[in-house]
């Protein structure tokens, strides 16, 4: 049995795996204390107490931005005219950041943990409606969530008069039609409303005016999954789980040419090299690690000099990147940094919602220039053109949302750390990684 006090997110699902079961079912979830935190929160704590608890625990959003969850919840109007009527809690399960696969894992393996976190989160802001905004491609998580929601409803954990109180909560799954921009929270709200997923202007921010113009909180899957154990064990316990200054555990992931790609729940602040060597089994024979995208496709490259850094928000930011989703993508020495950059820009160009000109027009143009360099048609001065255009396209404020910024940042870091590779393509007129 895994210790839930050190592995609150994955202890149960690893036990289920060990027992040869694919998923933590309702029986197993309840037998290990499941839904007790929701009962305790709804019957024994006020919404304000829960918001304070989560603030004290320093739980930060696990979807990429790292905003303090309790602070976000604190922006929701709780009294007066603004608080009357529906309020919404939306779980952002639109996991579409390339290289990220942690939310799928949590939803497929332990759907009740997310539901319990959503019950507590909804109570904290007195929301009466909750939605899971789920990727359209995620068929297995959809099946698991639908089953788990029906079970939770049959037990009286959802619906009217939860735990014998006056608290009502309906929970439904919205399947996305599929666009990366849906992960941006205001675009997500437009998609939830059945519209094109174009980001909204801010302010107003969703806690004041979100879904259908009502106060709305959008939280990532992993963020909400952290909530039940915080209620059970308290803020101090959560603060002490981290190895450095960040609180809690994190589901870290590694993909690329390692011996054992996968996901592991580890303390916040676990060093990059430890995750890669001890958990992902190190690089495959014959491959050398050159760089990583620490938390998805929109995070800047880190290189050798950074690999001993702990994975925590401030440290990774100080190193010039972002922790993002905490699922790192490894670039080995067989991969051409120019072509990998082209692959990244292809994704962002394709997934631009098309509303803002710099993003819609600029990203395909950058992709094309990278393709030209990769295929030997690069010209002297192209790199300076890329440098300059990065500002036009990627500087925050030039576009409505941060899609273009997220696209340009990894490119700028590639130009910084792998500039020799870019220059060699242009000076020799060919990609040195391709066989002659």
């Amino acid at each position: 049995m895994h210790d839930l006090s050190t592995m609150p997110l994955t202890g149960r699902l690893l036990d289920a795996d060990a027992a040869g079961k694919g998923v933590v079912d309702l029986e197993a979830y309840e037998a290990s204390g499941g839904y007790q935190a929701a009962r305790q929160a709804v019957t024994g704590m006020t919404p304000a107490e829960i918001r304070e608890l989560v603030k004290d625990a320093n739980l930060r959003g696990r979807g990429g931005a790292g905003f303090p969850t309790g602070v976000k919840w604190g922006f929701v109007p709780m009294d007066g005219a603004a608080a009357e009527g529906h309020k919404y809690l939306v779980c952002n399960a639109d996991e579409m950041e390339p290289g990220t696969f942690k939310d799928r894992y949590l939803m497929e393996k332990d759907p009740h943990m997310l539901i319990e976190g959503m019950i507590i989160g909804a109570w904290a802001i007195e929301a009466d409606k909750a939605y899971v905004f789920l990727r359209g491609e995620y068929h297995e998580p959809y099946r698991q969530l639908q089953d788990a929601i029906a079970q939770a409803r049959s037990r009286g954990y959802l619906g009217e008069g939860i735990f014998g109180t006056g608290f009502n909560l309906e929970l439904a799954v919205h399947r996305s039609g599929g666009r990366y921009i849906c992960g941006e929270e205001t675009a997500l709200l437009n998609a939830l409303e059945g519209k094109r997923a174009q980001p909204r202007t801010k302010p107003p921010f969703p806690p004041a005016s979100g879904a259908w113009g009502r106060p709305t909180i959008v939280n990532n899957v992993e963020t909400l999954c952290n909530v039940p154990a915080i209620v059970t064990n308290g803020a101090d316990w959560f603060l002490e789980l981290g190895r450095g200054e960040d609180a809690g555990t994190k589901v870290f992931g590694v993909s690329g040419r390692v011996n054992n790609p996968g996901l592991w729940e580890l303390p916040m602040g676990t060093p990059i090299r430890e995750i890669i060597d001890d958990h992902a089994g190190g690089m495959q024979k014959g491959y050398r690690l050159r760089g990583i995208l620490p938390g998805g496709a929109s995070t800047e490259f880190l290189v050798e000099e950074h690999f001993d850094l702990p994975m925590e928000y401030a440290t990774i930011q100080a190193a010039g990147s972002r922790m993002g989703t905490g699922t790192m993508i490894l670039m080995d020495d067989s991969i051409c940094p120019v072509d990998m950059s082209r692959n990244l820009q292809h994704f962002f160009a394709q997934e631009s919602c098309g509303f803002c000109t710099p993003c819609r027009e600029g990203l395909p143009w950058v992709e094309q220039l990278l393709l030209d360099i990769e295929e030997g048609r690069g010209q002297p001065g192209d790199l300076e053109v890329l440098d300059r255009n990065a500002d036009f396209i990627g500087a925050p404020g030039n576009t409505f949302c941060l899609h273009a910024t997220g696209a340009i940042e990894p490119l700028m870091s590639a130009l910084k750390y792998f500039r020799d590779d870019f220059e060699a393509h242009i000076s020799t007129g060919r990609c040195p990684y391709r066989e002659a």
Partner: protein
Amino acid sequence: MSEAQLISPLSAEEVEAIEAEIAHLPDRASAAIDALLIVQEKRGWISDESLAAIAGLLGMSTADLDSIATFYNLIYRRPVGRHVVMVCDSVSCYVMGCDRLRGAVEEKLGVKPGGTTEDGRFTLLPIVCLGACDRAPAMQVGKELFGPVAADDLDGIFGGFD
């Protein structure tokens, strides 16, 4: 019942499923994406007739609904094969050789991305990250996820689909 519903080519089952989505939303038009996915699930794609019928059911214009339908990657406004083959082309799968995999799939099916096999079984489409990066290179056929996929696995995988 509105006139649009009376002349709707939607089945009673489809209308019922769409109404069930509308029931937990504040207005009918908010079910646009759910409705498109429900009808597509039954018919494979969204024809002009389906689009008009859904728009009528939701009380919105066909043009509005089409602007939504064409925005999303997973809503098809052209016919597709019985099974859509999605080969991930995002960065983790790129590092693990998705270009080779896509080439092998193209060769096996005899179609390029966007194409449908002559027998109408498969349509090949590129897809962004499937969230299976520890199983790269990954692909999805219909609702089934596969990974890591080698060229040698393709006969076995495609053989499982009629």
